[in-house]
């Protein structure tokens, strides 16, 4: 049960949309595939840790949830991040 009622695919789409906005803000573009296996850092996505920090701020505003409130939690891929927001 999530507070915003999104399924995994919809949550992934929210993340993808926010990623594209953050890239646009820094003048970068990304037309490559984006799926649950996409890694935020260390893969082809032109993302750095500041971008990732910004994404979490944006996601909190979008979902009203902060899965990191109690501290750092391990995630590497978009699918793993989506799962954290879907925990509800």
């Amino acid at each position, binding site marked *: 049960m999530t507070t915003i009622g999104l399924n995994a695919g919809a949550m992934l789409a929210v993340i993808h949309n926010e990623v594209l906005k953050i890239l646009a803000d820094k003048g970068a573009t990304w037309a490559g595939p984006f799926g649950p296996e996409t890694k935020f850092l260390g893969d082809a996505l032109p993302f750095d840790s*500041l971008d990732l920090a910004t994404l979490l701020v944006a996601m909190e505003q979008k979902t009203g949830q902060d899965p990191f409130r109690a501290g750092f939690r391990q995630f590497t891929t978009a699918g793993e991040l989506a799962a954290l927001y879907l925990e509800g």
Partner: protein
Amino acid sequence: MTPPPAVPCRDDPVGDGGWLDAGCRLVQDGGVHDAAGLATQARDLVHHLAGAHRVAAVAATPLRVAVAVLAARTLGRELSLLRGDSLPTGVDALVGADGMVTRFPGDRPPVATGFSLVLESSGTTGTPKRLRHDFDRLTARVQAGRGRGSVWLATFDPGGYAGLQVLLTVLRGGGTLVAGPVRDVPALADLAARHAVTHISATPSFWRAFLMTGVQPPLKALTLGGEAADQALLDRLAAAFPGAAVRHIYASTEAGALFAVADGRAGFPAAWLETGVEGTDLAVRDGVLWVRGPRLATALADGRGVTDASGWYVTGDRVAVAGDRVLFQGREDGMVNVGGVKVMPDAVEALILAVPGVADAAVRVRSSPITGQLLTAQLVAAPGQDVDVLRPHVVAALAGLPAAARPRRLEFVSTLELSPSGKKKRVQE
């Protein structure tokens, strides 16, 4: 008098009394520079710097810093390591990022001060603060030849205190330092995997991003510094690298390397306030940490002291005693740390307020599980201003700041949220 260029011999390749460990290596941009190669480059630089009294070097890479330090040590001259483009006064020779030497012959030769290192503390605006460090103090804890076989990854600015510590550890202690063309975490993680890195010293923000890459080099020692280390991160690192020693270091350009905490817990033992640690005395006065010890900067570059008459230095770090632990709680001066970059929100806010058409603005500090902290901004447009027109002007006004100092979200609002006392809310929950 300028001493002649040192004559190399087999056991003392730089002519430095054998300070450089014969087993040290720098791997940078695909090139390998061993002790003999470093010595050759240092001798060449000594030749080009002959007659100089005060030297500055652009700290572009670990290699540039290493060669400049070895040359200045041979010449017995003060060396300022530059992290930006501000040149200190009284310098009569500059080693550029490309290694080329520019001379500034003045009418009056500046006074030579002997070998010491002048480091710039990190900051986002204004003239950097420069602090003089005694070289022997900087290297006092590095044991010659003890680091052979270790492979270090360069993650810090090579001209900053932490980056220099890692470099000197390798030059004096032996081992290999691997440096990449950019300090981007995914690229560095890839480098760590390819070179089977065994030692990394980095900021907590680096480590959080490093964990996210999933890269697993054969690490034996992990060091955290430059920001306060939180318990969740220490636990994650211990789980990800169970065979490695994890320690967090309390150090700064001003205070030097004061102590290391190796018990896996955030903060440091409260007992150290009574006993001191590693030769350093610690005290909490009005909620702020004071330190006194042998590794403090000897002076500001202009000769003024950094301590009070009793040798105490005010760190500006707010701390709280919680049970048997002393925990860090941010900066007294409002400075925040975004991914290891020190940022003054007030200065960033002033830049935004100076943009015509901005009626008011508040730069907010958010905690971030990735970069420790992060800036965002709320802005109020002046009546009649089109927000879409104004936004690019604000972005342009902030473009000169390091990426970490730029607010990552610019939110236009009709009124700013104020604290109950009527002040702008700096910290956002």
